[in-house]
């Protein structure tokens, strides 16, 4: 055994500068992170691990999935009912998609409130926002693949919104759909984007994001330009301390994914029917805020204003490090940025909640309400003492 190891070692030593290679690797493995690096700094790794999990389960699904309108829905049924553990990998992929988006959002929240986007890390933030957009696109394109009613119509509405973009809208919609309507051409396009283009695009942008992160090391909470140099003996070693935290997080992530998959499985739904729109189609949770916001824009320019309204937050996110040039990093010393951030976050959550409960019946404080499309509660007077309408 030892002989074999030595032979292999000798093989590499004869050909490469293995000492240099070893130094490079241990420099990375034992690099020091700033002393306040803790559990919140694990969210980026969590996003990456979920991407890896999505890639593995996605490749497994691809073995049985068929991207045509005739076969797609049946192939998902086949994966779920016939293939051994097929149900598990499909569920982990579907839940993993939601968790990945959730992890990316939490990671963004962490870096926002800790001021980590400030000089010199502006471009790390910008590549992060691009990763967020790519991740959402992953969700949008993957959603259509099972070719069920809800996905078919959510995609119809989603791509129809694209036609409201000024000047190029109609072309854009035609291009996205591969024709006038959502058909097998659309399925092929979304499939290629979902399983080839996005995985490689995401891999490339992640590489740049991590490279930039490493170049400037993790941010501290000190003022911009006044960071004290990191004394190695005060830093936290990446290996084993931070890696151990990441290991704990992977195990928790797998436990949560499997639990959700078993306790609350995703339905396959009815196969797509191009001649009938089902009632109350709603998008995935991460699109609910834009879905609800779009409802408030009406009239001839409504759709255009709606598109602008939904793009502004993303443009603001991309430009944010260049808009907020204050020197402070500590959240308690940045009341305006923190206030705006909280406002945006709570606003998105509120809109998403309205989108979730719109067109349903809800009970608040013992009274039944019908929640309208725009989220207004209308009391349901099934109680005898309800006041009659004023007119």
């Amino acid at each position: 055994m030892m002989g074999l190891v030595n032979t292999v070692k000798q093989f590499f030593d004869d050909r490469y500068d293995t000492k240099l290679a070893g130094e490079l690797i241990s420099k990375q493995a034992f690099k020091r992170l700033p002393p306040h690096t803790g559990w919140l700094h694990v969210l980026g790794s969590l996003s990456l691990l979920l991407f890896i999990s999505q890639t593995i389960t996605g490749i497994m699904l691809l073995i049985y999935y068929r991207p045509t309108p005739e076969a797609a829905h049946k192939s998902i049924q086949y994966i779920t009912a016939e293939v051994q553990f097929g149900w598990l990998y499909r569920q982990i992929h579907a839940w993993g998609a939601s968790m990945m988006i959730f992890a990316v959002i939490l990671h963004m929240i962490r870096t926002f409130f800790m001021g980590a986007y400030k000089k010199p890390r502006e471009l790390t933030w910008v590549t992060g926002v691009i990763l967020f957009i790519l991740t959402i696109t992953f969700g949008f394109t993957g959603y259509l693949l099972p070719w069920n009613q809800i996905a078919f119509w959510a995609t119809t509405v989603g791509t129809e919104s694209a036609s409201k973009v000024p000047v190029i809208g109609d072309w854009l919609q035609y291009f996205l759909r591969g024709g006038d309507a959502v058909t097998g051409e659309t399925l092929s396009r979304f499939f290629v984007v979902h399983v080839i283009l996005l995985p490689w695009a995401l891999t490339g942008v992640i590489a740049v994001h991590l490279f930039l992160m490493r170049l400037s090391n993790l941010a501290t909470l000190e003022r911009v330009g006044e960071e004290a140099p990191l004394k190695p003996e005060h830093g936290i070693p990446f290996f084993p301390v931070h890696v151990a935290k990441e290991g704990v997080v992977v195990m928790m992530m797998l436990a949560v994914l499997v639990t959700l998959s078993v306790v609350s499985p995703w339905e396959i739904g009815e196969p797509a029917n191009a001649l009938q729109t089902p009632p109350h189609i709603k998008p995935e949770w991460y699109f609910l805020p834009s879905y609800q916001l779009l409802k408030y824009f009406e009239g001839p320019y409504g759709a255009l204003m709606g598109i602008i309204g939904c793009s502004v937050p993303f443009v603001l996110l991309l430009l944010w490090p260049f808009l907020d040039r204050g020197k402070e990093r500590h959240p308690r010393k940045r009341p305006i940025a923190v206030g705006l951030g909280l406002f945006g976050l709570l606003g998105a959550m509120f809109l998403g909640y309205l989108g979730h409960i719109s067109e349903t019946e809800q009970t608040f404080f013992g009274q039944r309400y019908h929640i309208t499309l725009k989220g207004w509660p209308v009391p349901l007077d099934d109680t005898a003492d309800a006041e009659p309408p004023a007119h």
Partner: protein
Amino acid sequence: MSGQMNKPPTRRSFLDLILAVGSLLTTAAVSIPGLMYLWPAAKGGGPAKVEVEGADQMTPGQGKTIQVGSQAVVVVRHRSGFKAYSAVCTHLGCLVTWDSPTKSFLCPCHAAVFDENGKVVSGPPPAPLPEFVVKEIGDKVFVSAA
């Protein structure tokens, strides 16, 4: 070297020019067909004129969704005859259905209501439902795009 800048083209600057123009042309030659490849190939769709199956069994007030070419169309039988409108809601593309009690087209997505002539009564759609041409020949009914 800098003194030669304003002089007539030398052999070197001429070759540079050829190289620059050549790279541009090569880029165009490689990318234009690629972009055209991505553009959806126009397809006929289906027949542009379609017979409404079972039209004689529809009672006045009844509606039915059929496919004309690549378009979903609602055909409604009124006492006065048949009428047809695009079923694609002008808001965001969901399909409307005919509701005979209220004599209107309803959209399930954002609760739009269109009257029996396709005009918007309420909801977010910016435009009425486009009408389709109906021809009644004997007891057969044909629908085609306007």
